[in-house]
């Protein structure tokens, strides 16, 4: 006999987040690295940023951590986010390992 059962997943929030449009002309722009606190993250992300800067004719500008008392499992300090927003047009970062 057929029966109906409930699905187990909760609905996702209705909020729609749109991705920002791709910068059409990045030439001459600045790239920053937000190091997430995991071992060698800064090293890896800097290598990528340098390679990317060379490839798209941009400038590799800055490497920063998440700020005082922040670590790999916590959010980046708002001051650091603000600083990056002012200083660079593209930020590379990582999640977990």
């Amino acid at each position, binding site marked *: *006999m*057929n*029966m*109906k*059962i*409930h*699905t*187990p*997943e*909760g*609905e*996702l*929030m209705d909020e729609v987040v749109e991705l920002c449009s791709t910068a059409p002309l990045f030439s001459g722009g600045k790239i920053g690295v937000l190091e997430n*606190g995991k*071992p060698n993250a800064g090293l890896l992300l800097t290598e990528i940023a340098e390679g990317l800067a060379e490839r798209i004719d941009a400038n590799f500008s800055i490497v920063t951590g998440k700020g005082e008392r922040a*670590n790999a*499992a*916590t959010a980046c300090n708002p001051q650091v986010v603000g600083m990056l927003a002012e200083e660079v047009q593209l930020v590379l970062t990582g*999640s*977990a*390992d």
Partner: protein
Amino acid sequence: MNDNGGMESSSQFLELSDEDPATIYELFESHGWGDGLPLVAPTDERVTEMLSHVKASPEEVITVLPPRGGSATYRAVAVNAVLAGCKSEYFPIVVEAVKALGNQKINLRGVNTTTHPVAPLLIVHGSAVEELGFNSGLGTFGPGNRANATVGRAIRLVLLHVAGAVPGPGDAATQGQPSKYTYCIAENQKESPWEPYPMSLGLNSESALTIHCGENPHNFHDMESENIERILDKGASVMATFGVNNACISGGEWFIILCPEHALTASNQGWSREDVSNYLFEKARMPAGSFREQFNLLAWADWMKSLSDEELVPMTQKVENIKVLVSGGAGKHSCVVPSWGMTRSVTVPI
């Protein structure tokens, strides 16, 4: 509207061809749902019965759970409680646990997504233990008791289905751990020489629930000692290890789950719960230089950073991070449950 008063949408229901337990098992597997074990079919009748134990609209959102950002509505939580095999009278406990997981102190996004093996340990306190049949005695961590097993499992299913903490896309735990199936115990107040654990935090409630996000229990046994120092030295030796996250993150908590006989030994010497914490804080230490040899990154409190290599460093930055309570039955085994590190336990009334 459905019988629960909530809005029906086609995505809320699935057709099941029959009531054979293997049918839902295979259907859920085909959707990538479930914890790998057989499930109870969440029929409307069972979900409605579960919801009858709370005064809330089925579609009311209890909290939103990361990383997926799924809405933990009463309905969604009830569905998972049915799937887990909960009796409907357990449902208010499951709801309070989900609410507590939404507390920012838990840092559920980190708990769910980290590579570290961490699971929310539920500890039930007070009159709810006896009223609902939780096992606070012999074998409290399991197996064999329906309340412990299914309430813990319901939380895991909520984390899998609503929070999206699925190994791979939503849970990066390198090896996982068995307590990611179910992890629920109860405080053995009848055999505890001390006040209820929630009361030690200033919470005077008939029943309460604690959530501590931690590793599996690390056992320590002492069958022969007649003084608590010798027993706790073994607990301290279990704590003083480089392998846990708490070794390099000094803000981490430790739950010390003493068996009744070890607790009685402490009490017979006039020791309070705080005395046990103080002793472990002093004894579970290693030289600062050894930590520096072992770790490139040490998330230590400022006062710990200034210690010389020869000085002993405790396994947590303050004694209040060592929590003590009694659970389990006869036999002289206790355990230590280290936290993930970047999480704080929460105790709430129920």
